[in-house]
């Protein structure tokens, strides 16, 4: 008898529970959000973070759209959807050089209604500027990175040399080391000089290190300048004088770091992501690699001249999204200080926030962050806001003429003049 009663009660509980659950379902409207970001940018724990957010916001289901890791392809995926007025994905991870183009095409919405000025003030202002038009912020930084300078402590010590702070010093010291090592496989300097965005970043970092600028006071793009010439001459000279190998012109960042990792060069200029690779257990240079600031030209102060080309990934909201409020909540959650510090510890991608230089937990886990923050503070952003929707084409023009000069296809002044002419025609300035 008892068993039957238990059974009936149990049955009722199940029924009532089901109804209650169903009623509850109807009351709270389910929201489906889609966030687009490439897997390699966010580490293995991104699904965890999404799950945590879903736990805190039970009415929201988050779908992770794993976009291609190639920035160009990622962009064309977004653009394909945006020009088709699709609401996929609700949240887009943008390279810091894209917001200019996206804002110009109305592919993002202003986020000032969702984020208070106090909240925004916590983020690196230079990065926010790269996504701000008319005082309206369109994207929230998720993490930042930059080009850094890496060197071999052991080689410098062997030859009694200091860390070079100017390009002339770097070449001089590279020569001494190459001569001493007498290894035909060694090269003086490694970086990414293939015809890629990284080449433009590299050039800018020479230009800025010469005290030059690519944007003048009126906001125009200026390429054919004395400092521009000095920068490009230096790059051409490094190839001519043999400091850099000819094959440098085919190197992407991975090639560049591989040569360093193989122990074949004392100096490397490349993005910060290589630090974990260079210091990994199986890296032959793990114990002897150090990070410093990118050299400058003679007569320019290395302690104050911003020259490290910075990058970042930022979150923006698709204007066709039906759930901008929830999307903003997810962005807020992912970009809290706590979560950005976690991301930094997991992936080495640092928080794009002010005042992180003395974050104890972060520095304890990632001591190298100290040098990275120092370089960020000596950093500069690419002219993506000034060029707006034409940035990718401007960068393409620059890559073509810089590469042309490096290959000896044309003279330096000729290359800069032609680049200036094409840029003027493109931008209508």
């Amino acid at each position, binding site marked *: 008898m008892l068993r039957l009663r238990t059974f009936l009660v149990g049955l009722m509980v199940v029924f009532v529970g089901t109804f209650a659950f169903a009623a509850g379902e109807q009351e709270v409207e389910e929201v489906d959000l889609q966030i687009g970001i*490439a897997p*390699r940018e966010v580490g293995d724990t991104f699904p965890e973070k999404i799950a945590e957010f879903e736990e805190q916001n039970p009415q929201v289901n988050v779908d992770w*759209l*794993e*976009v*291609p*890791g*190639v*920035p160009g*392809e990622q962009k*064309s*995926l977004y653009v*394909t*959807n945006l*020009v*088709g007025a699709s609401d996929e994905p609700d949240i887009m991870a943008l390279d810091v050089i894209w917001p200019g183009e996206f804002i110009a095409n109305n592919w993002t919405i202003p986020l000032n209604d969702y984020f208070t000025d106090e909240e925004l003030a916590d983020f690196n202002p230079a990065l926010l500027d790269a996504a701000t038009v008319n005082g309206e912020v369109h994207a929230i930084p998720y993490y930042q990175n930059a080009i850094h300078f890496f060197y071999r402590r052991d080689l410098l010590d062997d030859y009694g040399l200091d860390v070079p702070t100017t390009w002339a010093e770097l070449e001089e010291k590279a020569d001494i080391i190459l001569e001493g090592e007498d290894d035909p*496989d060694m090269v003086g300097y490694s970086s990414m000089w293939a015809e890629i965005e990284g080449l433009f970043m590299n050039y800018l970092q020479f230009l800025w290190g010469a005290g030059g600028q690519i944007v003048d006071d009126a906001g125009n793009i200026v390429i054919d300048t004395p400092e521009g010439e000095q920068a490009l001459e230096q790059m051409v000279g490094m190839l001519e004088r043999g400091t850099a190998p000819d094959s440098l012109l085919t190197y*992407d*960042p*991975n*090639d560049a770091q*591989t040569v360093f*990792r*193989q*122990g*074949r060069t004392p100096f490397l200029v490349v*993005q910060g*992501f*290589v630090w974990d690779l260079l210091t990994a257990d*199986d890296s032959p240079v793990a114990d002897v690699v150090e990070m410093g600031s990118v050299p400058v030209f003679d007569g320019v102060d290395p302690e104050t001249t911003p020259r490290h080309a910075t990058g970042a990934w930022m979150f923006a909201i698709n204007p066709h999204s039906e759930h901008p409020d929830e999307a903003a909540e997810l962005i807020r959650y992912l970009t809290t200080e706590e979560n950005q510090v976690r991301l930094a510890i997991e992936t080495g991608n640092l928080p794009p926030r002010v005042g992180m230089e003395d974050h104890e937990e972060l520095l304890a886990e990632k001591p190298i962050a100290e040098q990275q923050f120092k370089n960020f503070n000596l950093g500069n952003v690419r002219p993506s806001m000034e060029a707006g929707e034409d940035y990718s084409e401007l960068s393409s023009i620059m890559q073509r003429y810089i590469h042309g000069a490096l290959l000896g296809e044309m003279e330096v002044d000729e290359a800069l003049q032609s680049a200036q002419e094409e840029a003027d025609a493109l931008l209508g300035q």
Partner: protein
Amino acid sequence: MRAITVRYTGNQLLQYGVAILLAVIFFFPVVWMFLTSLKPAGEIYAWPPHFFPQAPTIINYFRVFTQSLLGRYILNSMIVSSFSAVAVIVLASMAAYGIARIGFRGSSLVLVVFIGLAMFPQLAIVPSIFTWFRDLGLINTYVGIVIAYVGLFTPIALWILTVYFRTIPSDLEESARIDGCGMLRMISHIILPVSIPGVVTAALIVIIQTWNEFFLALVILSRNHLRTATVGIALYPGEYAFPWDLITTATFMAILPIFFLTLVFQRRIIGGLTAGAIR
């Protein structure tokens, strides 16, 4: 007598030599890729490099399926290729029957039109296809890419089938027609069964072509999960790197099906490719 034998063998030896040399030249890239895929990432970038893997491992083959979408890419390719092939064969065999077995005023002109259209460059159609497919919601759908492929590869199948159908003796149809057999029934029940070799050839060539197609797949399928194998792997290189361990492994996996198809059906495929080269 003896001298002749020796010269004959010498000649044959030379032929064998050349044949082996050709095989080495043509297969070397794939062999090298296979060797690379057996090396752990550390060894791929070791200095100095090794020709043969020091410690062969199949770890890359696990990683490529767990750490990338290769499985999904290959599935996508299979779906797209098989649906395209079926649709192409249906349309092309109908048209080929009309042209080769019945004929009408201007039917040879129609054939020329098909062949001429097949020469149209993809770049010329892409701006319009992209704009239209966007408006129709066909971007990032299997349906969209299959429609495009059917349009692209029907002409070659039509050509192969037309040539094949012309070789079928006509008394087969005569008797069927007397029995009151309709035209579609005639195709599916009389013509296709005796044309299996031609149909298989056409289908194989369409499968290989769709598996290998790049431009339209790149433009129409921009979502990572929908990419076909060819495009998906070609876009492995990330922002910073060419992960050669994964790329070589994935490439090897993606060409394996094609490799076996050509190996098993080489005679058929060659027959199809060269059909009509001699008129």
